[in-house]
């Protein structure tokens, strides 16, 4: 797969539509919201099924616990809002009422990361993957684009137990297609290569593909992996990448502290140590600005991925 030109599409729209289709197929699906239902597109689910959407106001802890109660009574409860509220503000409620209880609560959050844009740092959570992947029993998904977000909805409903899925406010490049296979726990190799592996999640997958194109111009064959499941991690695909390409660069719109880079580094260090590079937010808060400007300012670009790949290859040395 090469880079672009890609269609820019809204993950929220895919999410909203997928939820309605799921709701049609499965009457046990219910949705709770926290005064963001229009923005996150769950309002349309409410129009289709008026008695299955519960608007609970600006009270996210209550929203999560209500979802847990609904799930305890046999429902599949989707709790949807912005990431900063749906993960950060509700952390201990998710921990005790959703994960410890192992209930069918599916937390779908948009507005993750820097690309929330002008709202600024208060709304740009770059720590949600770290929070959620640390909780036992949680499944954590980061879909690369709209079609994959829709697949996450179906997969979430089909699996038993708690799940967190984060995606973007901004339109993102559509790098997958509706026909592509998707399974929780499986990372997909989008482009093969043997010199280095670029593993990205969310909107950084497109940037990994772009970086691979640039590296290709210099004769470097980069493998690109779409890590849409952060937990459980696809250890086999990561191990294979380490063995076959000898170096790994991770790219995430998230702090490098306990994000996907950390998760992958744990596997790499334990199984097959190779040099790694980490492209992500460098343990700082964001700020107001347009999505693209922010990505550039905070180093979440194809150029940075290329630089990291070269650095990894340099550190690996000629012995390989």
């Amino acid at each position, binding site marked *: 797969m090469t880079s672009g030109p890609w269609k820019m599409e809204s993950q929220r729209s895919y999410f909203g539509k997928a939820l309605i289709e799921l709701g049609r197929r499965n009457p046990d699906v*219910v949705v709770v919201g926290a005064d963001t239902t229009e923005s996150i597109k769950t309002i349309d689910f409410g129009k289709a099924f*008026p*008695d*299955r959407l*519960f608007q*609970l*106001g600006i*009270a996210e*802890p*209550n929203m*999560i*616990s*209500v*979802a*847990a*109660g*609904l*799930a*305890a*009574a*046999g*429902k599949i*409860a989707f709790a949807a809002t912005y990431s900063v509220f749906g993960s950060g503000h509700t952390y*201990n*409620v998710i*921990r*005790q*009422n959703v994960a*410890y*209880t*192992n*209930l069918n609560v599916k937390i779908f959050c948009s507005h993750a990361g820097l690309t929330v844009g002008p709202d600024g740092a208060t709304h740009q959570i770059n720590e949600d993957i770290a929070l959620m992947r640390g909780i036992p029993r949680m499944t954590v998904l980061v879909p690369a684009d709209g079609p994959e977000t829709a697949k996450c909805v179906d997969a979430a409903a089909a699996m038993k137990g708690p799940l967190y899925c984060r995606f973007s406010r901004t339109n993102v490049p559509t790098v997958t297609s509706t026909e592509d296979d998707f399974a929780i726990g499986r990372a997909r190799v989008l482009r093969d290569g043997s010199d280095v592996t670029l593993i990205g999640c969310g909107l950084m997958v497109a940037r990994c593909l772009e970086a691979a194109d640039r590296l290709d111009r210099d004769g470097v064959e980069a493998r690109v992996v779409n890590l849409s499941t952060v937990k459980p991690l696809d250890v086999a695909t990561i191990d294979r990448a380490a063995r076959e390409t000898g170096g790994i660069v991770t790219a995430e719109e998230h702090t490098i502290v306990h994000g996907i880079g950390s998760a992958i580094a744990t596997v790499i260090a334990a199984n097959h140590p190779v040099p790694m590079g980490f492209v992500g937010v460098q343990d700082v808060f964001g700020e107001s600005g347009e999505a693209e400007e922010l990505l550039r300012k905070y180093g979440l670009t194809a150029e940075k991925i290329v630089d990291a790949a070269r650095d990894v290859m340099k550190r690996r040395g000629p012995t390989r």
Partner: protein
Amino acid sequence: MRRAPEGRDKALNYRAPSLRRKPGRGRVVVDVSEELIRGLKKKAVTLRKHIIRMTHNVQSGHPGGSMSACDIVTALYFQVLRVDPKKPQWPDRDRFVLSKGHACPVWYAALAERGFFPVDELMTFRKINSRLQGHPELGTTPGVENAAGAEGQGLSFSVGLSLAARMDHKAWRVYCILGDGEQDVGQTWEAAMAASKYGLDNLTAFIDRNGIQQEGRTEDIMPLEPLAEKWEAFNWHVLTIDGHDFRQILAAIDEAHRTKGRPTAVIARTVKGKGVSFMENKIKYHGAATSDDELKLALAELDAQEAAV
């Protein structure tokens, strides 16, 4: 979606045929047999003995708040709740949610006495490899319906259960016991708003108003009064009762069942450590077990109460 009715008068005006109201006092007494009340009193003493033994055995746990809630739990499990110990997951069972999770000794004691698991197992409470965790865990202990420990989440969880029962047109009801310390928690009031928004008349919340939380009197730590007025302002049907008087507890539940269009909050005035003289109203016994000597004294007092019933 059904909403709470405008104003509170309609619900307050009803008068259940089984209830006698003492003139001018606003208190209710339900006509139930002496025999029934004696049976509940005996059972409550049994549960209190379990609480004392369990917490003494492991030298930890929270006896005070378990004993204040004991009579409410006894009334629910031995008179009110439609549950089947042989089928803990029976879909049409009533749901009991213990929001004040630290009081789980009383829950475990009631579940064991009700036949959900062997009474002997109570002595594994808080020990390694036990099904009886220091705070309730869902899925491990037969009959336990929620996880609690971090305060203030149980009423929200109950709202979710109540919404599900209503969606499915089920007759099962939800009973939640909250601590008065939990009234400090913002989420409790988020849940209170949601329950009245959806007019959840299948939900009854008991507030175990023992007046003491971990570090002192509730009114010193964070003043709660006027508490009944707070719940009324949140558009709940509110009753204030003596939480150790079975007639009042049963009458309150009866009234909650008959109240349509909104949830009922029962503010149960209780005594922390109720049943053992030297533990009553003592802050220490929120989270401290009895010593060996205290154990003997406590059990002797409870034995005497049992004999007097």
